[in-house]
């Protein structure tokens, strides 16, 4: 289910003295099963852009085609579209509203006029996909969940509609390292095994470097870069000038390089960094 954005602009509070433009002439296309990272400083417009993908915003200037359907076209069934493009908010409290986990996840499919047994099956499958045990959590009070469990429940609620595309808006913010890892593994699995297209908005350069094959950099409502992950993180100066960073391992290697070590560019992960340092040390003749 490809996504096509053509010359999209967006302003808030149109026609008031507070009118301001947050997106300027955005054009991009996303192919099936891609994993795309979207990064940018706060207020760069990345969330506004992402909310166009499932028609939470409808373009007034420019166009969005989801599977060749124009979201601004009155004939487009937006409810169905939102089932195919799921949106997970940063704060799961905006998303979860039923008293228990099971009821919350059943909400989407129960509006598709499916038989009860089918709904139960979808709930069970979605919970399994995000690693929430069905029997343990089905009747669990939403308020009794931890931050990481809440986010998984929110994702399960979206998965129950069987989306082809998932838009994830900074869903690991505020999670502890294990909570992050668990959520990232869920996302990785959905991408690899279910072939779901992932649009991953994040403030963590490490997460984006780890997962995304392609990165779109947004600043001041415009696309500043749209390239393979490695190519984007090679543009250090530009990233820093708009307030972004490099992954932690990349920064560490940068520091080692300024201390006189000969190390290659383009390293993004801890494992690659260790390998590169080890190679440089051996070349220098250090014993191991």
């Amino acid at each position, binding site marked *: 289910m490809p996504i096509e954005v053509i010359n999209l602009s967006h302003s808030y509070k149109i026609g008031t003295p507070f009118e301001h433009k947050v997106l300027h002439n955005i054009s991009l296309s996303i192919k099936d099963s891609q994993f795309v990272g979207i990064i940018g400083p*706060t207020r760069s417009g990345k969330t506004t852009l992402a909310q166009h993908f499932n028609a939470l915003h409808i373009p007034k200037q420019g166009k969005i085609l989801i599977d060749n359907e124009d979201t601004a076209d009155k004939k487009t069934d937006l409810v169905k579209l939102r089932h195919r493009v799921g949106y997970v908010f940063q704060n799961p409290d905006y998303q979860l509203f039923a008293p228990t986990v099971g009821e919350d996840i059943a909400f989407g499919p129960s509006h598709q006029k499916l038989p009860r047994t089918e709904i139960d099956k979808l709930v069970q499958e979605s919970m399994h996909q995000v690693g929430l045990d069905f029997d343990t959590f089905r009747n669990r009070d939403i308020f009794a969940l931890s931050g990481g469990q809440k986010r998984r429940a929110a994702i399960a609620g979206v998965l129950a509609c069987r989306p082809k595309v998932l838009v994830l808006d900074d869903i690991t913010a505020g999670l502890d*390292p294990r909570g992050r890892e668990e959520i990232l593994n869920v996302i990785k699995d959905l991408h690899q095994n279910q072939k779901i297209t992932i649009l991953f908005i994040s*403030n963590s350069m490490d997460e984006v470097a780890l997962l995304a094959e392609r990165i779109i950099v947004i600043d001041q409502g415009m696309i500043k870069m749209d390239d393979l992950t490695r190519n984007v993180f090679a543009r250090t100066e530009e990233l820093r000038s708009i*307030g972004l960073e490099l992954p932690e*391992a990349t920064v560490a290697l940068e520091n080692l390089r300024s201390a006189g070590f000969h190390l290659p560019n383009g390293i993004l992960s801890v494992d690659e960094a260790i390998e590169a340092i080890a190679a440089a040390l051996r070349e220098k003749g250090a014993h191991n």
Partner: protein
Amino acid sequence: MNKLIETINLSYCYKAGTKEEVKALEDVNIAVWQGEIIAITGQNGSGKSTLARHFNGLLTPTTGSVLAGGMSTNLKENIREIRKIVGMVFQNPDNQLVSSIVEEDIAFGPENLGLPQTEIIERVEWALNTLKIEEHRREPLHNLSEGQKQQVAIAGVLAMKPDCIVLDEPTAHLDPRGRRDVLERIVRLNREEGITIVLLTHFMNEVIYCDRMIVMDQGSVKMQGTPHQIFCQSEHQKEQLHKMGLDYPIASQLAAGLKLEGFDISTDIIHTKELINSLCQLK
């Protein structure tokens, strides 16, 4: 050095005495020393926020006691004084900011202390300068980035001239520049103004700038010490940290990996600078 904050056999239950009673803290005995910067870390739900909320009497113990500046939070009449000593900054600055203009917001606290106008102006000035946000003084808050808003929230607490500022994951929702700028200012408040800092965080690259750290799990203190002590690569410690779902700082991860590759590298590494030193010593 003085104990600025001390918890004595502190236990806390949410909904104490009801059927839904949840034990959040169990027999916590810790101290925050005057002038230090201390990190409290642990998984979501480990009890670190509950603990921090005891430091200025937002929560009071179910059993045990908490002393701030020598005064017990169990006595209602102490709370006003205690809040002058211990200020609190929350994760989301929007929960904390009350006015629409930066300097008005910073003045809000001192105004409520009933200080004379000249003193209020002086304190606002000092807070703006200390956080290096003078240029934004007349700006409406909604024009600021999240990181800048968090700096204003810190300035507002600073203007109360507390001895200690407790920050509950102040960088969790910030972009990379916001995180760096806020962390830098927090460290500077400690190093240059001598303000005691309690920093709750999940980021190990913030923990390494602290003098000491406390690791919480399931409502109790599991480890205490300097970051070097906690991140030393002993098998026992590694296993414990892993069980509690915590990371190592990036320099420690690289050092451990190189050690595994057979290089003779110090395991006492948490900063990149230390890694560089150790690598330079390899023959």
